[in-house]
């Protein structure tokens, strides 16, 4: 029952797949649709006798309203608490008894339920997912609410970096629903009701608002037949409401400081960028790699290795997003060094990449890193399914096959252009974690 605020595109490359560098092999996903609107995406992979089955609901924290943040994630928890046929926790126990691993996660854009098991047991998971798509009871939620509050304490309240991310999220977006944390504000969680749960479930958990991804050792026709048998009888629901909010452009730097018990200062910088549906996405991806992927990258060499003012530095482009996206820098400041030094050093590196094209070798290196990661990602059927699902959720799954060609086509001029256009200090939000230490 994880909840993730953001899924940086690059970290996904560690989980993805598709094309071996020497040969452009396309992702052979088979697509089908049931009459009730449920889309099914199937990818056979016979490397190992296991299958991963995932149900993606097109609902996340972006669909919530003020005062009711955390509802999508709370509903995710409650989906394990029984249906008309199943007792609380029975879903998890049945999967475990069948030698499977199961879990779920909620993001700003989608809620995903999945299980991985031996090929001959996957029918069990299919039946149970079909059952809880319509028959969840969503009762008796008070103790699970307490669990969610503990989760919030663990992930955010007592975690300086996450706490800073949360505050910055609320400032980088003034209107768009991404400004609310997926786990929800504590006061909102406290106020969530059974009616909220049931209404949200009815509105968003319908076959026409979901899709299925299956990757592994199965026969496509057989598994499709099973899916049709279990999910086919579920009635189509009303179309889910659309999110119509739009974030106005940011014209002027925003700054925020968070004081919290911590050891070392953190510095975070967020810039507004388009998601990967925009053709600038490929260049933004490579820009983040050139800037901070690997120890030969620009920011690592400058801040960590040469100047020794940061313990580590990241650059992320989270283009896998239905709404707008963020390009971010994050650095932890070395003991006895100043946050201002780190900020100034990052500014210099950014200024350089905005004024001069990157070298051919750097660009080639970055493309190699992305392509290799693609292959390594194919090592995991779960990772492949995740990637297919993410692309389908925010664009369409076919995008996977356009991804590497798009990366390969990026020129140094493209990288320069996107750096100039988007890494403008007037469009950024800067956050610092200021450590306080109480002596008790």
């Amino acid at each position, binding site marked *: 029952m994880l909840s993730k605020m953001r899924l940086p595109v690059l970290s996904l490359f560690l989980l993805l797949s598709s094309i071996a560098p020497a040969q452009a092999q396309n992702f052979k996903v088979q697509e089908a649709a049931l009459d009730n609107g449920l889309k099914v995406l199937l990818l056979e992979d016979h490397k190992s006798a296991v299958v991963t089955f995932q149900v993606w609901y097109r609902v996340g924290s972006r669909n919530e309203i003020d005062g009711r943040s955390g509802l999508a994630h709370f509903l995710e928890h409650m989906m394990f608490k029984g249906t008309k046929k199943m007792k609380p926790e029975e879903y998890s126990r049945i999967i475990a008894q069948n030698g499977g691993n199961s879990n779920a996660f909620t993001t700003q854009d989608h809620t995903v339920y999945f299980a991985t098991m031996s090929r001959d047991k996957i029918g069990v998971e299919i039946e149970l997912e079909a059952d809880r798509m319509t028959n969840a009871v969503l009762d008796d939620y008070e103790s699970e609410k307490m669990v969610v509050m503990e989760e919030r304490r663990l992930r955010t309240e007592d975690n300086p970096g996450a706490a800073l991310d949360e505050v910055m999220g609320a400032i980088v977006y003034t209107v768009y629903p991404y400004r609310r944390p997926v786990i929800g504000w504590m006061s909102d969680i406290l106020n969530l009701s059974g009616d909220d749960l049931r209404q949200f479930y009815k509105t968003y958990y319908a076959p026409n608002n979901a899709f299925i991804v299956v990757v592994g050792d199965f026969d496509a026709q057989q598994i499709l037949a099973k899916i049709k048998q279990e999910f086919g009888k579920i009635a189509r629901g009303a179309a889910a409401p659309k999110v119509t909010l739009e974030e106005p452009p940011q014209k002027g730097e925003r700054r925020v400081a968070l004081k919290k018990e*911590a050891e070392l200062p953190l510095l975070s910088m967020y810039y507004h960028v388009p998601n990967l549906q925009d053709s600038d996405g490929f260049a933004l991806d490579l820009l983040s790699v050139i800037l901070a992927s690997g120890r030969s990258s620009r920011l690592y060499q400058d801040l960590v290795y040469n100047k020794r003012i940061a313990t580590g530095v990241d650059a992320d482009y989270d283009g896998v997003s239905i709404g707008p996206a963020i390009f971010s820098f994050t650095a932890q400041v070395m003991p006895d060094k100043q946050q201002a030094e780190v900020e100034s050093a990052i500014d210099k590196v950014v200024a350089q990449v905005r004024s001069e094209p990157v070298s051919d070798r750097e660009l080639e290196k970055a493309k190699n890193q*992305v392509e290799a990661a693609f292959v390594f990602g194919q090592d995991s059927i779960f990772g492949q399914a995740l990637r297919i699902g993410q692309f389908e959720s925010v664009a369409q799954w076919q995008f996977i096959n356009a991804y590497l060609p798009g990366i390969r086509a990026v020129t140094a001029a493209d990288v320069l252009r996107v750096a100039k256009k988007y890494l403008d200090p007037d469009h950024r939000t800067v956050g610092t974690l200021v450590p306080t230490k109480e002596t008790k």
Partner: protein
Amino acid sequence: MGVTVIPSSSEARLSPRRSILQNGLTVITSEQKALPMVTFNLLIDAGARFEPEAEAGLANITARLLTYGTKNRTALQISETLDYLGATLSTGCGEEAATVSMTLLKKDLDTGLQLLAEVLTASTFPAEELDRQKQSILASIRAREEQPGYIAHLKFIEVLFPKSSYGRPVEGTENSVKRVDRPGLLDFYQKYYRPNHAILTVVGDVSHDLMMQKLGRAFQPWEKGGASMGPPPLPAPGPAGVIKVNKDLTQANIIIGHEGVPRSHPDYYAIQVMNYILGGGGFSSRMMESIRNRRGLAYSVYSAFEPEKYTGSFQVSMQTKNESAGDAIRIAIEEIRKIREQGATEEELKAAKDYLIGSFPLRLDTNRKVATFLSQVEFFGLGLDYPERYPELIRGVSREDVLRVAKRYLHPEKLIVVVVADQTKAALKTPLDTGQGL
């Protein structure tokens, strides 16, 4: 539902092969042709247990500095080579062994092997890099103070394993790290980074025979040597008690535990089955049921018997708001007592076996998992037929066994309880309300 799944052909799929190079390096391979990639996992008998206590952190720094300079390449050149290939080469260090892992595309196999051999035989530990690394480690020692779970872990091992390398953080302390010097590093490297004290696992698109040929050539300069070390000294475990650390937190981070068993222990499998029922089995476990599901006291709660090669620990770990710390601890200890007194039901036993046996293939569903798995199988001396034997080892555990090992290996009176929390809000009563007199 509930037919025990026998993982068919785990071994056939892995087809592991084992050979020993001239220089004594044990090599295990598993040819996997599905993807044009190769992954390496090297375990070396060069863990923290071999370092002098006054220089705690030496073994860790040695491992870290492997990729920061060799006779032929600077740190930057090594990074540039790896990044250009999109390959990863990382190192790690534990109490017993150091690890080196590398993943690359098949087309880069020869370049990668050359680099791997170089770092293992010709690392130079430049003074400037040592200085940089020390600074980095001192920063990370400080940064970890932000992680209450890690603070709890350090306190727990300190108390459980007094006067032992198992009781120290692998990265050392501020003072001990400052004492590490270049001669010490070179000495450690010469003494412990030897092929005859190492296990290399290779998984990917390369045959065993070809791999042995390539390794024979690439690792030719890596000479056998070093003394064979017996097991480390293992002082008696520390006393039961409650250790409180005060921090400005909303949650109490709790570890409750005591001594465990080493991996080779004959009761290891019965203990794993018992632990699954007690707190290892996720949503199927008793601790999860009574602490999370019924009372909503924690998001994460589990118990584990963590085995090392020569020792082990038993730990219950959970986080709950400060005010519930006392209750959560009491309930966890109650569950420990209950399973000692009553054992497990037939239903619980079956569910545990079904999961452990049925999910076994999931441990082997990526090349990297296979590489780690095979290294550990060799390190712990389990035999390459371990995947085939596993179902029977688990199936053979009876209800009587579960009760017997619960009584024998769970010791409420020996429990060390570590609580990192806002102690004012936690307001723990001492002795704890557990009927233990703790």
